[in-house]
């Protein structure tokens, strides 16, 4: 935002002030994310910079909290770091288990949300779709309705899923979905679906329909047209939608708290417990790892967005 040549001194001063204000706001946005990184290497169990850290003394820094992520919950954390030690960590360490659960739940809920969401986005973007406004509003509502309400509703529902069928359901109910992986996966898929729909419909809105007509006029069946023409062009949107869905699941804690049990301990749930009970700097080590993961995700989404623009022939200015 270059100043016009006719700007008065007062305007120049205001211009500088405005830039200074923006710098402060960017600092406000970034500082909390960056501050955890150096603190996670603290040698002391404190959440603040020690004198040694400020003096950049190597003795003030250590990897002990990262080490604790592996050893916490292990049966024999002391021994030699051989294959048996790593097998122990893989099977018993709390944070490792939590990471496994997060990935399993995130993976399946992403698959479910992406498949159903992409199909629905294809239908919603067709001009002849009946009742589009209402259906879109329903499909996007899981993003708007407070998660606590969703979790409360799901808790009642999962305690006796067949009650939804009313008198048609089997006598005495049909088991429960609380404390099951399936239950958490279904719930996370529901929460991720709006993101898939938004990103895929955005990509489809700029999709040139004459391409599918051209394919059809050359004799391709609708299915073949979809896989050969449409899908390759909307793939970037689908992949970013999937990433959004994955992050939604990977970061979700309320539903897991309400309907999951210790079996379904995910990283956010473990963090939640850690923060509420005994907050130790290993939380900061996890936070640092998660910040790095989100930087990776952001990079992928940004690259995909540029690729999608290139595919569609939108040249970045």
């Amino acid at each position, binding site marked *: 935002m270059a100043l*016009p040549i*006719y700007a008065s001194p007062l305007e120049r001063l205001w211009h500088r002030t405005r*830039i200074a*204000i*923006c710098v402060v*706001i*960017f600092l406000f*946005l*970034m500082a*909390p*994310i960056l501050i*955890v990184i150096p603190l996670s290497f603290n040698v002391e169990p404190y*959440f*603040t910079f020690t004198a040694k850290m400020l003096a950049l003394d190597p003795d003030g820094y250590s990897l002990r909290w990262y080490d604790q992520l592996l050893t916490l919950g292990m049966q024999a954390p002391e021994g030699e770091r051989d294959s048996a030690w790593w097998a122990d960590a893989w099977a018993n360490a709390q944070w490792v288990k939590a990471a496994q659960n997060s990935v399993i739940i995130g993976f399946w809920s992403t698959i479910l949300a992406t498949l*159903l969401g992409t*199909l*629905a986005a*294809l*239908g*919603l973007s*067709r001009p002849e*779709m009946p009742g589009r406004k209402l259906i*879109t*509003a329903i*499909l996007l*509502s*899981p993003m*708007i*309705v*407070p*998660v*606590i*309400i969703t979790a*409360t*509703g*799901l808790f*009642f*529902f*999962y305690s006796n899923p067949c009650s939804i069928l009313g008198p048609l359901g089997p006598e005495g109910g049909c088991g429960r979905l609380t404390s099951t992986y399936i239950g958490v996966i279904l719930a996370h898929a*529901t929460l991720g*679906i709006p*993101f898939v729909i938004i990103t895929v419909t*955005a990509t489809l809105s700029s999709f040139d329909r004459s391409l599918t007509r051209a394919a059809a006029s050359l004799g391709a069946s609708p299915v073949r047209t979809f896989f050969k023409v449409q899908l390759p062009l909307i793939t970037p949107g689908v992949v970013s939608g999937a990433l959004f869905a994955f992050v939604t699941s990977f*970061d979700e*804690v*309320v539903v897991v708290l*309400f309907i999951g049990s210790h079996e379904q301990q995910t990283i956010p749930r473990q963090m*939640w417990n850690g*923060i509420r009970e005994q*907050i130790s700097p290993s939380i*900061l080590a*996890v*936070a640092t790892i*998660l*910040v790095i993961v*989100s*930087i990776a*995700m*952001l990079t992928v*989404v940004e690259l995909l967005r540029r690729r999608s623009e290139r595919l569609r022939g939108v040249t970045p200015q």
Partner: protein
Amino acid sequence: MAEILTTADGRPLKAALQAAQARAKRRAFWLVAPLLLFVLLTFVAPIGQMLVRSAHNDGFSAHMPRLTAWFAANPGAADDAAWEALALDLQDSAVAKTSGIVGTRVNYELSGTRSLFTSTARKAKDFAPPYREALLKADKDWDDPALWGVMRQVSQAYSGNFFLAAADLARDADGTIVQVPEDRRVYVNLFVKTFVLAGVITLTCLILAYPVAHLLATLPMRWSNLLMILVLLPFWTSLLVRTTSWMVLLQQQGVINNMMVAAGIIGEDGRIAMMYNQTGTIIAMTHILLPFMILPLYSVMKTIPPSYARAARSLGATSWTTFRRIYLPQTLPGIGAGSLLVFILAVGYYITPALVGGASGQLISNLIAFHMQDSLNWSLAAALAAILLALVLVLYWLYDRLIGIDNLKLG
């Protein structure tokens, strides 16, 4: 009379076109149908079920059938038949071990009565006529007319009592609706507080987002893309990570307080409590929701041609007038979209207030969680959730009317 146009196979063109359009409609619908069914089953129906639960609780009527039947048939005060029904129901509930459920249900309306039911049920197997005397011998509280009034109310499985409780109201012994005693009025205040806090957070977000969005929209693409990452990274970072970071920054032995002590701004014993109160909730939630304000503002500001402002200046407007009369009105759609979105998200927030809010920074969601997990008054939790849901849906509808739900964008 013109000839009817037909297709090659001889059908009227109009009918053939209608059939084709109907087919296209059906195709589009079948693509959406699986997801619609999925969302209806795993989201809409559970919430509907929750709404039913907020007005339905058969904790009393299901386990006290005789007394429930007596209440339905007799409008007056308790007679011998009523005492007999009560005694026999208590005997049954002692056998079925349901007296706790019944007592809990009555206890929601009249506190201190749960133990009356459980302790009487333990003695119930010795009850013999005359039942009134037997019950009064077990506990003289059974003669309390207020108790009988409450039992009459809770014998109806469907009632609005939980909604009354959620609005700090209750029915007295005659069934008239009255306010609960002053020291027990929590929910209305909490709803008001939630809305005020959400409003404050929305306003701070707007004030912080406006200059940043303007900077991003007016910088050359190369620079704005780079700075955009600084907005998007917090957006992609885990909520718990950001909340944890704020705890690290804000606590009394935390980074900000330490820096201020080191700089001599405050003394060692003058450390400011920025966490476990409303300030903590406002700061952390503003940070978390800020990207949701910047992104819609940015996408609107990007489309405003700079020539309007130049034209205004060339016609003699000062820079302040240009901003107020030309630029600001054009950004109103972005302000509306961002503010509504941030407000909707803030009203239902749970995690951040629970972790950094302390006692005074709690929102309505935290109370719903409390009733779900600790007090186990699920019907009241459902009623509170239903009220919150209704408020959010009104805002959602408003968002759809003003901005259009299909204009929701991410990043």
